């Protein structure tokens, strides 16, 4: 039986509609940036959770029930955690509120003291007006904390949107792939599964890592008897989502708290050693184990990504900079490979040739 070889003609008008839709979408995103933002966060969250749902799905539990069960269990867990932490926090925040003016005063006096000494020896420093800047900074701390409150509404909106995204699953992606020319489905799925492999491993890795660091920091600070251990540990946990930041934030914040609490330098030394230990544990034990399947990023690239992220999108830009860099790196790698194989930049790959015949 013979069939005619299919003749494929490229007709560029077929791309008009998809390109138009894509452009309209980009324009809409630019216009409604702030409305889109919770959806991006939710999509990221749904993406992180979805392997958990798939775990139950391939074991025969229907998606709707798996998602509902996950929400009920997670809701119960979060309720218990929030209850316990709020119990600890409310006490700590209250005492922080009461003692903040005294602490600020103490800190200011300490800096002024050292500043005046420094200025005496290095008159040049007086032009920097460090003490004035510090007073301004210290006064700004409580309003800054209050400014974080609107972000709390996100805590309700995001899980809500995520729920519906999880119910839908990869429906949108499947729809797009189903409507692509069939011959390109293989390559599109190949690219998607490669990005998924490295990005998914990175995201799940970094969240596990942040949680472990939070637990270690909380235990350590509690044992050392530092005030506000819970608050500091949560801060460390969250800042661990950004490479290198966790240990630095932890060391600085707890050193300040320890100095205000004890007034001597010995606890600070202990804290610095403790966070140095966490940093090494993270680098030598956690990361090689958790991140072994994720994309490898050069520290210089991480730094560039963080700074560029801050420039483009502020705090959230920093949070998203590393995942986005992962995607870009994977896409670049795939693009180079495609140039070499599909578009024949390099000579056609040669199959492995073995001279000894099959015996």
């Amino acid at each position, binding site marked *: 039986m013979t069939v005619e070889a*299919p003749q494929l003609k490229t007709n560029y008008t077929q791309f008009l509609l998809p390109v138009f839709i894509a452009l309209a979408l980009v324009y809409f995103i630019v216009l409604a940036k702030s409305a889109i933002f919770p959806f991006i966060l939710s999509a990221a969250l749904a993406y992180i959770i979805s392997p958990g749902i798939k775990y139950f799905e*391939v*074991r025969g539990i229907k998606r709707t029930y798996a998602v509902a069960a996950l929400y009920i269990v997670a809701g119960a867990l979060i309720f218990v955690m929030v209850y316990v932490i709020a119990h600890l926090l409310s006490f700590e925040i209250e005492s922080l509120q009461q003692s903040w003016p005294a602490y600020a005063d103490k800190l200011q006096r300490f800096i002024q003291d050292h500043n005046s000494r420094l200025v005496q020896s290095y008159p040049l420093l007086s032009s920097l007006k460090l003490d004035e800047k510090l007073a301004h900074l210290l006064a700004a701390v409580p309003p800054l904390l209050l400014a974080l409150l609107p972000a709390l509404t996100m805590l309700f909106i995001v899980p809500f949107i995520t729920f519906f995204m999880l119910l839908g699953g990869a429906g949108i992606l499947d729809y797009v792939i189903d409507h692509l020319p069939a011959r390109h489905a*293989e*390559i599109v799925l190949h690219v998607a599964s490669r990005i998924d492999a490295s990005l998914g491993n990175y995201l799940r890795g970094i969240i596990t890592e942040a949680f472990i660091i939070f637990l270690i920091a909380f235990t350590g600070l509690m044992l050392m008897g530092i005030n506000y251990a819970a608050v500091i540990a949560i801060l460390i946990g969250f800042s661990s989502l950004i490479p290198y930041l966790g240990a630095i934030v932890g060391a600085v914040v707890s050193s300040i708290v320890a100095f205000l609490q004890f007034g001597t330098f010995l606890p600070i030394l202990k804290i610095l050693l403790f966070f140095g230990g966490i940093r090494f544990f993270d680098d030598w034990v956690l990361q090689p184990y958790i991140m072994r399947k994720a994309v490898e990023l050069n520290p210089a690239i991480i730094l560039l990504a963080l700074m560029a992220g801050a420039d483009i999108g502020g705090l959230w830009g920093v949070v998203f900079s590393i995942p986005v860099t992962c995607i870009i790196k994977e896409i670049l790698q795939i693009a180079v490979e495609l140039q070499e194989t599909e578009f024949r930049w390099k000579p056609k*790959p040669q199959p492995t040739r073995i001279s000894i015949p099959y015996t």
Partner: protein
Amino acid sequence: MTLFSFLNRIYDEEILSKLGFLKGIRLFEGIRRRQLIHVLESLQERTYLKGETIFAQGDIGRALFIVFSGKIALSRLDPATQKSEVIAEVHPGEFFGEMALLEEMPRTATAHAMEDTKVFMLFKIKLESLLFARPHIGVNIATQLAKIMSARLRDMLEKPEE
């Protein structure tokens, strides 16, 4: 509502039929039913409509295809006559394109759907992660792949010259 009917409602029976189907695939021989769940997790489903091209001769191969339902025709272009000839038909339970799992080389045939066909795709990257994360399954698949290759080669050698 009884417990049984509730369980029946949340349980997706399609999974059972898919697992049963995978159990009968030669590539997955020797993998226990429980472990087939991990295989199913790594597979990608897609339906090709009648007449759609799955891949063309010369495309770089990235995945192995297992036919779940429907029928696929594999055809090869004869460079001399510029006519392509159907060299094989792939039926449910059979698979093709396994070369892509070994090396990313151009496909040696064109595959198109002869009717609406549902396939499972196993991508090289997924097989690699199975090999590392679940060596038992990965090694099993690799062994079967080697056996199939060897059988093909033997078949070619033993076939009388045309």
